[in-house]
């Protein structure tokens, strides 16, 4: 299997930014049902800044690319998703160290650490109707294939629909949070889909 180089990570983050840009209104719409109607705007602001940062200071390694993206999200997004996605990417990047290329398995392991950091920071667990419900299954499936990860994220996002939210803003709604897809799970699916898409273009 091909190793993933810095270019791959830059292309992944760029594809993620494009997906967020395209789906921003949908994310905001989802957040409007059970949150405060800003998730799409937040993600767009963050990923626009990520693209700019990557162009301005091209990173030297996969870990550096994720670190830069994570720091940028922390300093541009705010809200719950800023620190959470920021932590996800920073922590994953730190795990990758400064290796010039990494394998899919390396990435799966590092992402596992990143996702655990998100869980620790936000105090949420699987089933709480958050981004974790898409991220955790995706990370578990990633060792199999990029497609499996995307598939798992997709199922995870759909599975949030019948859940009752226990963390984040949606939790204030109690039972009324049931019946809506979690916006963070939806944006996580975008990131994982972008990963599959980038890999499918010949790097995975």
């Amino acid at each position: 299997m091909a190793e993933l180089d810095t270019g791959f990570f830059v292309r992944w983050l760029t594809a993620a930014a494009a997906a967020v840009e395209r789906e921003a209104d949908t994310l905001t719409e989802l957040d409007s049902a059970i949150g405060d109607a800003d998730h799409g705007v937040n993600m767009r602001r963050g990923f626009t800044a990520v693209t700019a940062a990557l162009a301005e200071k091209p990173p030297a390694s996969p870990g550096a690319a994720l670190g830069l993206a994570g720091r940028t999200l922390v300093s541009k997004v705010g809200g719950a998703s800023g620190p959470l996605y920021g932590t996800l990417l920073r922590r994953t990047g730190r795990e990758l160290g400064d290796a010039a290329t990494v394998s899919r398995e390396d990435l799966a392991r590092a992402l596992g650490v990143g996702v655990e950091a998100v869980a620790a920071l936000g105090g949420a667990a699987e089933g709480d109707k958050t981004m974790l419900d898409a991220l955790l299954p995706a990370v578990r499936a990633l060792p199999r294939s990029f497609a499996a990860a995307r598939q798992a994220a997709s199922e995870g996002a759909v599975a949030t629909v019948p859940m009752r939210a226990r963390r984040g803003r949606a939790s204030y709604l109690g039972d009324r949070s049931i019946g809506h897809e979690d916006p963070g799970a939806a944006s996580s699916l975008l990131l994982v889909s972008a990963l599959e898409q980038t890999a499918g273009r010949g790097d995975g």
Partner: protein
Amino acid sequence: MKMLINVPERVVTDALRGMALAHPELVVDVENQVVVRRDAPVAGKVSLVSGGGSGHEPMHAGFVGRGMLDGACPGEVFTSPVPDQAVRAASATDSGAGVLFIVKNYTGDVLNFDMARELAEDEGVQAARVLVEDDVAVTDSLYTAGRRGTGGTLFVEKLAGAAAEEGAPLERVEAVARQVAGACRSYGVALSACSTPAKGGPTFDLPPGELELGIGIHGEPGRERRPMMTSGEIAEVTVDALLEDWGGSPPTHPVLALVNGMGGTPLLELYGFNAEVQRVLAARGVAVARTLVGNYVTSLDMAGCSVTLCEADDELVRLWDAPVNTAALRWGC
């Protein structure tokens, strides 16, 4: 939904430019979204810094000034500020006596301010944090993100601000803030949803004949819908929700009462609602020491109201009466 704006992306920076032009007594860093007192850092004084998503004006930037906040960091609309903003506000106002971050209990606010606190301490600023979680509509703290910070924030900022202005050290200011946070309870009701600039329309649907009980201040829907009620009935539901949380018996000390508008309800109606709130409080045996009526902790153009009660001993009443000189709250100086 029509709005008096240029483009949604620039709403907050436009507002900060306009605030700077109206308030020469404030220093407004528009680019970094930080507002501080012109005389900051005040020698020997503990600094109070707060912030949160925009859309709750005049909170928080309207509470910056003598006797209340030293700095504020407004985030995007309904989006908590990023750590950088809070760090800047802290650094710009710290006299060496330390900084107290006043944080409303929302996942985003907590996470970003916690990061800010770490960063500020790295910069050598002594930083404490108090959490405001006064919204009794959130009953099930175990299975939620916990109680939201709403109207009680005004009392925490005013009373701790008065203590800081009098020269109290950080531990004392923090203790006052914590006491006040514990003494505050709030409950809110929406007659309409608000419209955010980003969404361009209402954040939820509220049918003509219904109201929403137990709302937050971020345009998020509440926990229960009921057929429309009169002002008197809304006052009863609201006050009873607050008192139930006090354990059924009324507070021992008199209360400071905030009868707050969510932004879109005319002051005429708010004053009328206050009459009903005071009637119900009297009927339930609650003594009221001071009352503030107006739009202070808002949710953009949402129609509705919230009531916050802060149980106050003589010392807290004294701190309430102490001079305050900010854009939105001003007396005694």
